[in-house]
Every structure is written in C-alpha cells, then in structure tokens.
C-alpha cells in the first residue's frame, strides 16, 4: 500500500499544487504556516473537495474521482467530529456498520479497538463526557476501525493542553507505527512533525518548498519559514571557493567549499557580539545595529541589522556588559566552522 498524489486545487485566488508520496507504513508530515494549504491538501485526499487537476493513486488504483465513502481513507479531524449523539463505542462501530459488518460484530471490533487505545472503561460514554485526550483516542480508533488504506490526521494534537499533548503524542506515535498503510499528518507544530513523522513535507503558499527527514530539514532549511521554525539564520547567495556572497558585496566565509547558488545557515548562538572590532581568528566580522532584544530560554535573543539581518543569542551578563539595547552599534562575528553552506 502506498500513496502517490499530485494535488491541484484552485480556490478564490489560492492555488494548491503539491506532489505527495508516502510508502507503506510511512508517516509523512505536512508542515506549513496557517493558510499554506495543508488542510486543503488533506480534504482533497479524503475526497471532501475535488481536484482541479492531478491525480491520487492509492494502492495502485486511481481514486481521485471516487466519492469519499468509497476511498477507504481514515480521517482524524482537527476537532475530532465525534458524533455527539452516539457513545464512544457506537462512534467507533459506525465505520464497520457502514461497510456492512453486523451490529454485534462491529461492536465487538469497536470494543477491541477502544481497549487497544486504552479506553475500555469509557465505551458507554458520550463524546461530551470525554476529556480532550480521550476524544482524540476515540477519533483515532474510529478512523482505524475501517481498516483504512490511508490514514489522514489533521492537527491531531492542536486541541490538547500541553500535558495531555505530551502523553497523546507518545501514544499516537505507537499507533501510527502499527498502521500498515501510509499516514499523512497535517500540523503547524514542527515538534509534532519531527516526533511523529518519518519524513517532512514543507508546504508554503500551496507549494512544496522542501521535503526530507527531520535531520536534513533542521540542519539545511531552504526557506525563511523553515529557518525560523528550526531557529537558524538563513541566507541565500552565490558560493565560490569557501566564501558565499549573500548580500551586495557582503560575503561570509564558510566551512564548505563549492561553487554555485548556495544557502548559508547558522544558529544564533554562533554569532558573537563585541564593543570594538575583534582581533584574530573569526574572518566573518561586520558592524551591526541592535533592533530588538527578547528573552529566549536562558539567553537573550538580539535582532541586528547591518549588511545582513541576523539574530544572535548572548548571555544576560554579556548583554549587560555590552549595554545591548535597540539602537546600540556593535561588531558581530561568526566562526567559519559554525556556518553551513549547501547548494540552493
């Protein structure tokens, strides 16, 4: 079982044009900012909106013209959409009932599934009597009850509080691992995406801008959105012989030597700030002006302008010593070994 889809959906000025593949048992996260088209992609896969172009091939069969009830795709909706008038048990038994399983048999299956997600004590409860985490599990059990060829999850953890989120994420990861078919997960939370998915597909403005595993995405972002998500400074420029020209005449010396269009990425903690121009090793030094100061964990995040916009993390003590406040002029430096360059 695998998924191969090219989704083209046009809606009042917005165009989604994304290619999406997922192998058997693979969990793919669709990650992107609000309005990027993630939910549209999910609804198109489920058949709740039609494609304007492209195709959806699931398990070797073209399904883009099939009605949602014939696609055999399980969906966990963002706010779960458990049927409020049915018990947890009947919610889970609903799918098998629709596929022609007898009432008794479908209830046996549903009880079994609810036990597997750890809710054997709550089968008789109505959705309004369940907590957020429990409702999420019922929704997952309901989607899995039809033995779907493809599992779709729309922001599965977004409606949960922080504590429940942690438990549910671990629980969800276990169940996704047990599902044989491909899974597509939509989220705007990079942590959820990296914890739950084998592969990330970054969607911006209806287009796939980057795809890869968590390690590649976090170390080599290709758009400002991804760089912000993973907390890196990112520049695009032209590389030659160990230097990358990133803005006008401004060049950064990097550890990787190649020639061509390139990205340069480095963490804010790699940027050091000085009152006077530093002597010695770092070749990347430039004058900069502080534009904003904010707290970032234990450190202070300093936003700087100059030849390039850059974020730097410094300790509170250093910030006091340097008198860092908006408008202050400083020298910034970056060690060449901490800047990664990779082909654009």
């Amino acid at each position, binding site marked *: 079982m695998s998924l191969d889809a090219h989704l083209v959906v046009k809606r009042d000025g917005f165009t989604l044009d994304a290619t999406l593949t997922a192998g058997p048992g693979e969990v793919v996260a669709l990650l992107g900012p609000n309005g990027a088209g993630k939910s549209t992609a999910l609804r198109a896969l*489920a058949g*709740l909106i039609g494609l304007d172009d492209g195709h959806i091939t699931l398990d070797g069969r073209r399904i883009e013209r099939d009605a949602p009830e014939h696609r055999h795709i399980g969906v966990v909706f963002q706010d779960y959409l458990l049927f409020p008038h049915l018990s947890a048990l009947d919610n889970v038994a*609903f799918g098998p009932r629709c596929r022609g399983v007898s009432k008794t048999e479908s209830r046996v299956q549903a009880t079994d599934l609810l036990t597997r997600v750890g809710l054997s004590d709550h089968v008789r409860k109505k959705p309004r009597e369940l907590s957020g985490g429990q409702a999420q599990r019922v929704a997952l059990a309901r989607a899995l*009850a039809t033995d779907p060829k493809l599992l779709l999850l729309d922001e599965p953890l977004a409606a949960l509080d922080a504590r429940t989120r942690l438990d549910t994420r671990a629980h969800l990861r276990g169940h996704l691992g047990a599902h044989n078919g491909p899974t597509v997960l939509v989220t705007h939370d990079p942590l959820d995406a990296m914890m739950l998915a084998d592969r990330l597909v970054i969607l911006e403005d209806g287009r796939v801008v980057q795809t890869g595993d968590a390690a590649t995405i976090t170390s080599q972002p290709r758009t400002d959105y991804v760089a912000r998500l993973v907390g890196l400074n990112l520049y695009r420029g032209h590389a030659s012989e160990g230097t990358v020209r990133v803005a006008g005449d401004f060049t950064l010396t990097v550890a990787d030597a190649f020639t061509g269009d390139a990205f340069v990425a480095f963490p804010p903690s790699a940027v050091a700030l000085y009152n006077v121009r530093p002597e010695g090793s770092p070749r990347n030094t430039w004058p900069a002006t502080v534009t904003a100061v904010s707290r970032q964990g234990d450190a202070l995040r300093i936003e700087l302008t100059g030849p390039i916009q850059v974020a730097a993390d410094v300790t509170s003590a250093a910030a006091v010593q340097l008198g860092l406040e908006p408008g202050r002029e400083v020298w910034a430096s970056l060690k060449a070994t901490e800047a990664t360059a990779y082909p654009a």
Partner: protein
Amino acid sequence: MLPLAGLLIRAPWTTLPERLTEPGILAALRLSLLTATLATIVCLILGVPLAWLLARTTFPGRRFVRALVTVPLVLPPVVGGVALLLVFGRRGLVGEWLDTTFGFTLPFTTTGVVVAEAFVAMPFLVISVEGALRGADSRYEEAAATLGASRWTAFRRVTLPLIAPGVAAGAVLCWARALGEFGATITFAGNFPGRTQTMPLAVYLALEQDLDAAIVLSLVLLVVSVVILATLRDKWVGVT
C-alpha cells in the same frame, strides 16, 4: 388571552356535559386529530428531504423553490384551496389523470382534507427543518462519509439525530397549523360531517345555528390542542 377568556366566560357550563356527548362533536374531533396527524406525516415525508435539498445542495432555481415553499404562508388558505381544486379537481391538471387512470378523486374526501392541511402546514415544517440543518455542522456528514457512509446513511444516522429537536419543533408547528386549518379545507374538501368536517369547520357551521354549540366545540379544540402541544413540547423539544 382576552378572546380565550371570553370563550371560557361565555361557555354554557350547565349544559356542557350533554353537549359534549353529542355524536357530531366526537366525529369532528376524531377526524381533526386524524387528518392533522396524517398531514404532519405527509409533511415530514416530503418536507424533510426538501429542506435537506434547500440547505445542503445547490441546484439551479433553488432560490425560486425556497420562495415557492413559503407561498402557502402568505396565500389566503381559501386561494390555496382553489389552487388545489384547479390541480386535483376532477377536471384539474392532475386530477383528471388520476380520475381516468385510477378512478381516484381527491376533492371532497378525507384524503382531500389531508392534502389541503398538508399544503397549508408544509412551510412550517420545511422552514424549521431547513433552519436546523443550516445550524447543524455539515462536517459531521463529511466525517460520516470518510467512514464509508453513503449520503443517505449519513443523513439518517448522523444528521437526523442531530437536528431531531428542529424536526420535532417543525412537526409540532405543522400539526398545530393543520389542526386549525379552515379555508383550504372547506374549499377543497367541502364540509361533510364524518368525512371532511373537521373541528374548525364544525365550529363555523355551528356558529350560524347555535352559538353555544360553537363555543363548546371551540373549547374542546382549545383544550385538546393545548394539552397535546404542552406534552409534545416538554417531551421532544426540551423547552419548558
């Protein structure tokens, strides 16, 4: 409230017991309850799918159909009765065909009463149910579809239970309107005791001969409707 009080004050309380047992009253009451209930059932069968079409689908002329549904609300019931005669009368558009094909005529029969009442009461049901459908989250139907439910199954097992209060409220309104129906009934079905003479018709007839009898009939209709509506309201609509 004043007209109701007037009814109570002017009621011939001394002769009430014997008047109540007159066979005409019982027959009219039974006919009224029967036809109003049948009309409500007809409205449910035709009106709920129509409301679903209006609320959930788009088709050419939908606005026109919606306007058409509300026509019986603004049309004088007598005009409605005339219109029904023109369509279902023995020389009417559909009536002539029904008569020659099945030997079946609607006007001046008990079935005719049901048709007239359903015609007038239908908007109450359709408007209530359409409102309930628009208020209900259609994404539950989408969730049902992803679980393999056909549109009909999704409607029957998910949407209908969700909008049950709206349907019940619409049915109660519809029934109440059918029970009080006069103009279309007398025009289309006539005023034959035991066959088409419902309570409002009996009241009207009695008014011309015997005021006290008319008051008694009105009282009975009043008491029966209040009792039934109060019971239904508590039980189905959940409003107290």
